[in-house]
């Protein structure tokens, strides 16, 4: 695995395999991926998912739609994953508040962090739109996992299982662009 260092004094971190993330998604029983394209995960996750037949890809117009689609699916005992960018997460806060948090539903969100510097923790990012994400999730009482390098990928399956077991939302923050292989 290629080791990348941030251009802004980040710690060196290994690259991350999109294929391994997709394996985690499939192994956790996700049947639907609901998505608005995100540049961080575009090539490594969304394009390979679009090329496959399972999980089924549902393309949506706006991220808050996706929160509700995932809720409807959860009621039918079907597992789904909302694949979006943090801008969409921020745009969907009221839907996440009402549907995922107040109704306590297992809405699983995989969120690419647009413009996050590789090797820099989200809270330490120089980008305002990145460093506010985790404090906002803390304020909302939503659990999250940082998926920054290959060793983090193993957190994905258990995080999804935990969300469904507890019927609570989970956010997986993708900290660098996964490779397609």
């Amino acid at each position: 695995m290629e080791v990348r260092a941030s251009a802004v004094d980040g710690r060196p971190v290994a690259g991350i395999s999109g294929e391994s993330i997709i394996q985690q998604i499939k192994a956790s029983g996700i049947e639907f991926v609901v998505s608005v394209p995100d540049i961080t995960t575009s090539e490594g996750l969304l394009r390979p998912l679009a090329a496959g037949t399972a999980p089924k890809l549902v393309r949506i117009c706006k991220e808050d739609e996706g929160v509700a689609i995932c809720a409807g699916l959860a009621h039918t005992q079907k597992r789904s994953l909302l694949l979006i960018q943090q801008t969409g997460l921020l745009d969907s806060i009221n839907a996440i508040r009402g549907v995922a948090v107040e109704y306590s539903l297992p809405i699983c969100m995989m969120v690419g962090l647009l413009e996050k510097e590789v090797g820099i923790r989200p809270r330490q990012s120089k980008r305002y739109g990145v460093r506010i994400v985790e404090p906002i999730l803390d304020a909302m009482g939503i659990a999250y996992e940082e998926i920054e390098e290959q060793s983090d990928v193993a957190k994905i399956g258990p995080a999804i299982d935990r969300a469904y077991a507890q019927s609570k939302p989970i956010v997986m923050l993708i900290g660098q662009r996964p490779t397609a292989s």
Partner: protein
Amino acid sequence: MMKRDACLKSLSRHVTDDDIVLPVYSTAFDWLDIRPSPLNYTAHGAMGLASSHGLGLALGRPDKRVIVLDGDGSLLMNIGTLVTTAALAPKNFFHFVSENGTYEANGGHPTPGRGVVSFAGMARSAGYRNVYEFSDLKIFEQQVGAILAEEGPVFVALKVEPTGPQKRDYERIHGPGVRQAFKDALKAG
């Protein structure tokens, strides 16, 4: 122009115990009195999202008819839902919109584009398979049964009068009891 509760009563005669119905706001309070059922799904979490909840239900349970009873103000908040739904084309999805030109649950203020916007036209342009618009109750009564027998996605715009003040107990539509009753009923059948 029609009265909403008359339209809902007419529709209710063709709804079965197996159907999932998602009524919003003012329509929900009318519908719960007209046709109580544990498969009424009324907790949508945020304005505009009923059709998207319905789409998720329709994808997850293709064996069940999913009937969304939307409002024009709600649909305006999530207008992309027409495109998303038409692209996925679930055969079991029926989207009714009561057009009264007001945000009835928020003080009765007018919706933008009232009297100009064609929701049926937007649904047709989005790619809905079958699209209807009614402003005459007798014609709606004659056709609604056949419409519900069609292959979805189906969109029906109902031109209705504003209803005015209404007793609204939001616990009836958002409370944990109704949410659990829906979950249990859906799981059971």
